């Protein structure tokens, strides 16, 4: 019976009692996971995907009302005793959660932590080596806070791998492992890993490393994986099968490559269409209409109907269930779709896909300089050691003309946030100069729009306050406030609302309106979409485009999201460990990256590889504390040679690209 599923879910429904009615988290979900299979569970926040993974672990919690059937390794995870469920978690399952900062007990050393899962000394070292943790012996003595984010996630995975894949036989009358292949389960790894957004909090390059680690565990140990994620591209790089969820229901399931190539549910199609593309050939993103449904007041028919172009009265009245569909006469692939119109979609996919959306125009750029940073540097006292300095930004020069848009991209800790604070005047450089030309101070759009609005003033008042501060009269200010609200797409009656009464998208619009009230020539954006769902973020980016086109405002866009950078910016600057390593026009940089780090970063991005595992950039950036000799990337660079380790490369022109690398000769210089 080796082919039997190791986990199966039948007709699972979960409800939570809430103040404003009953929240229906799951509504009749079926799912099976076979040995060694990687299943991606994809959906936006609130789709019920995390609740499903909790049910698989038998940890739905006392507040959840659960109906249906969940069986893992032969044990009923809903009605089994607490001891039985715990035994399954201990021996058969492994779980990895999103937040690597919070996933490890901060008061336990790594070694002690792993021993809690039965991983003692040698076994712990072996498992840590298995998940590619360097300097294993040393790690076991360290505290979680002494590890980087990527390492913590690896330790969390090692902890998850502590399951031995066998239930103790004297535990209960039934021996659930009987029907499983003993030879395989003797592999000393869990039968199933459940990973809930395991890479969301990680940098792109580390993300790729973790995904390929999952792939290797499956290949070497036949360890099945349920990958819960909102990121289709990441899912596609490792998963065999995808389950797309919306409002607590499965809307589509099937082999992931096939689903992504030919989505049969309108929601899947819209989700794919709303993606920010990374490759030049892909079509422009189409933002999804409307917003996700309120889980406490779901419609009786298809929950996606209000946002669907194909919806008919039938959709609004009946709740569609997943039914097998055949594509090109082949029904063996196990594709199931819960849509009355899937046939229409499969026959004529163009009905949902895209109109041409505005491409960034460069026509508005003029000679007026709105920002000029000349070799600025900034360092801080190192946390934990007052004698050392943390060099956040070192010798960076950036200039920007009116109407231009520049994205600064890099991984966490590369100094992009410090650069943003220097450029906006919130911080003063230790060295170098910051100049805004004649245009006055730039304005800032913050990552967390909610926190950037004063909580006790209505948003209308916060905009008017800026106008009044510029000496405008009250009538003019009120008029102008209405115009600004109109420009950013906010209804004027929202002006009376306090920030906490608005949705995330509305807050970001209000924050942009307020920034524009000061009539800046430069708008600096700090990851303005990272807190928003994918369907909203395209709309905010489009708004920024529009602001730029209508007002000729320049944009400095700081982000870790390469696709967002490509979508918003004419020029992209890549930062690594406090320095700009490459700056080039966006089209050029994404088509033909030069610096080895840019090459690695682009390669590591799952969006750049349709459905295959991205080649990984090994290691993690070195610590920004203390001084480094030579090129900071030398420790990870595939083409490194001696000169890189001793001499800091200068940022020099190479045919329209500015580049700091010894490996590529500058213009007119023959190696």
């Amino acid at each position, binding site marked *: 019976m080796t082919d039997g599923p190791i986990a199966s879910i039948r007709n699972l429904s979960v409800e939570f009692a809430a103040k404003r009615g009953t929240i229906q988290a799951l509504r009749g979900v079926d799912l099976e996971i076979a040995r060694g299979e990687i299943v991606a569970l994809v959906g936006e926040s609130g789709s019920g995907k995390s609740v499903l993974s909790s049910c698989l672990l038998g940890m739905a919690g006392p507040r959840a009302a659960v109906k249906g059937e969940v069986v893992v390794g032969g044990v009923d995870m809903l009605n089994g005793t607490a001891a039985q469920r715990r035994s399954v*978690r201990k021996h058969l399952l492994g779980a990895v959660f999103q937040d690597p900062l919070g996933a490890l007990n*901060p008061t336990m050393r790594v070694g002690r932590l792993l021993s809690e899962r039965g991983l003692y000394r040698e076994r712990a070292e072996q498992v840590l080596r298995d998940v590619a943790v360097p300097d294993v012996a040393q790690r076991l003595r360290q505290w979680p806070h002494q590890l980087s984010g990527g390492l913590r996630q690896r330790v969390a995975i090692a902890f998850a791998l*502590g399951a031995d894949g066998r239930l103790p036989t004297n535990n209960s009358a039934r021996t659930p492992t009987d029907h499983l292949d003993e030879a395989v389960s003797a592999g000393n790894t869990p039968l199933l890993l459940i990973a809930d957004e395991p890479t969301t909090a990680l940098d792109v390059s580390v993300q790729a490393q973790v995904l390929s680690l999952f792939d290797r565990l499956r290949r070497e140990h036949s360890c099945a994986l349920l990958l819960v994620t909102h990121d289709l591209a990441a899912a596609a790089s490792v998963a065999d099968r995808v389950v797309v969820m919306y409002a607590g229901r499965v809307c589509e399931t099937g082999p992931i490559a096939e689903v992504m190539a030919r989505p049969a549910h309108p929601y899947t199609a819209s989700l794919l269409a709303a993606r920010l593309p990374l490759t030049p050939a892909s079509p422009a993103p189409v933002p999804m209409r409307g917003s996700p449904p309120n889980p406490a007041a779901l419609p009786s028919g298809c929950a996606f109907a209000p946002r669907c172009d194909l919806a008919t009265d039938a959709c609004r009245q009946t709740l569609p269930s997943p039914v097998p569909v055949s594509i090109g006469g082949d029904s063996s692939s196990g594709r199931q779709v819960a849509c009355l119109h899937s046939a229409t979609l499969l026959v004529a996919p163009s009905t949902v896909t895209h109109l041409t959306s505005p491409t960034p125009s460069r026509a508005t750029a003029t000679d007026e300089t709105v920002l000029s940073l000349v070799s600025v540097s900034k360092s801080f006292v190192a946390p934990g050691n007052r004698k050392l300095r943390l060099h956040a930004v070192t010798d960076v020069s950036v200039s920007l003309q009116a109407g231009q848009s520049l994205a600064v991209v890099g991984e966490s800790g590369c100094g992009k946030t410090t650069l943003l604070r220097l450029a906006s005047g919130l911080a003063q450089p230790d060295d170098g100069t910051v100049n805004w030309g004649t245009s006055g101070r730039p304005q800032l759009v913050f990552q967390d729009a909610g926190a950037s609005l004063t909580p006790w003033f209505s948003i209308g008042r916060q905009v008017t306050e800026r106008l009044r501060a510029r000496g405008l009269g009250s009538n003019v200010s009120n008029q102008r406030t209405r115009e600004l609200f109109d420009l950013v797409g906010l209804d004027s009656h929202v002006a009376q609302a306090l920030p906490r009464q608005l949705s995330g998208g509305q807050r970001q619009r209000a924050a942009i309106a307020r920034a524009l009230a000061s009539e800046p020539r430069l708008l600096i954006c700090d990851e303005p979409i990272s807190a928003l769902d994918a369907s909203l973020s395209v709309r905010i980016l489009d708004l920024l485009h529009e602001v730029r086109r209508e007002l000729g405002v320049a944009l400095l866009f700081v982000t870790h999201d390469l696709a967002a950078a490509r979508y918003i910016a004419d020029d992209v600057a890549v930062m690594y460990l406090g320095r700009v390593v490459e700056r080039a026009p966006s089209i050029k940089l994404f088509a033909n990256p030069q610096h080895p780090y840019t090459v690695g970063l682009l390669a590591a991005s799952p969006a750049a590889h349709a459905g295959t595992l991205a080649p990984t950039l090994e290691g993690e950036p070195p610590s920004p504390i203390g001084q480094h000799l030579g090129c900071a990337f030398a420790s990870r660079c595939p083409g490194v040679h001696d000169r890189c380790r001793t001499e800091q490369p200068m940022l020099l022109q190479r045919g329209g690209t500015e580049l700091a690398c010894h490996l590529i000769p500058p213009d007119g210089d023959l190696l």
Partner: protein
Amino acid sequence: MRRAVVTRLAWMIVVLFVLSFVVFSIQRTLPSDPVRIFFGRNASKELIAQKQHELGYDRSFFSQYGLFVNRLFHGDLGTSLRTRRPVVSDLMDFLPGTLELAGSAAFVGLLLALVIALTGALRRKGGAIVRVIAIVFSSAPTFLLGLGAVLLFYRHFHWLPAGGRTKSATEGNGWVLLRSIAKGSPSKTWEAIRHLAMPAVALALAPGVAIGRILRGSLLDVLEQEHIRTMRAGGLTERSIVLRHALRNALLPAISMGGLQLGLLLSGVVVVEVVFAWPGLGLYLNQAIRLADFPAVIGVVLVLGVVFVISSAVVDLLQTVADPRLRGRA
């Protein structure tokens, strides 16, 4: 870790000096001249002047402070006006009683805090009851608890003695409990515990409940954290999750609350000793206040201050032990 200890000890010494300075300043602003009070009204001017010179009262403020500190190091706190004995000898007699009482109260309080924190916390029940208990006991004056206890357990039930440390009035000083334990005398130990029971519990209730409430809230917060979910998913038993993983993480806010309660415990002990006629520093202080015996008042304040400063240093270091993340910082 070593650096944290050194920094904390250095800070403790600074605070002790400030304490001595504050106490000295208070002493110097006394409206009455201790020398005159000591010798009485009929003393000759020469005698007073000579004594004042001996004690350095004719010197500048800071040079007098120097003398004060110097005398402190030599264990000289002057002479009590009431008992006519060196204040230091009086303090040595009464300090053990106060330490035994305060120590037992701290122990009982911590036990109570643990019971409050762990009972019902796992099932998230009893929050409202804990809240009512917390408000009741943080609002009850220590002497009300003491009076109620005396009326109930002594007057009504005759279970416990009304006051004092032992049955006989002559053995009331020194380490009564510790000595009886060391001597291995169960009857004497039991007697000491019976005398300790009411005052210690009366003193422990308010801080114990306050700490317990904080610990409970913090424990419930920690149990929601992701690393606890990781442990649950790893199949650990709920018991080991709470005791081995959650509790230590929940300690930090409770320890700071404990530090806060320390000051209240040390002022509470004075009141409780008066209520239970407990021969300790508090009773001594109460008598000294009523007879304007300032050398004695100053002596007690200094000793209680030192106890407080040292124990808060210990509490702070406990925080560093509880949370490894605090160790790197100064």
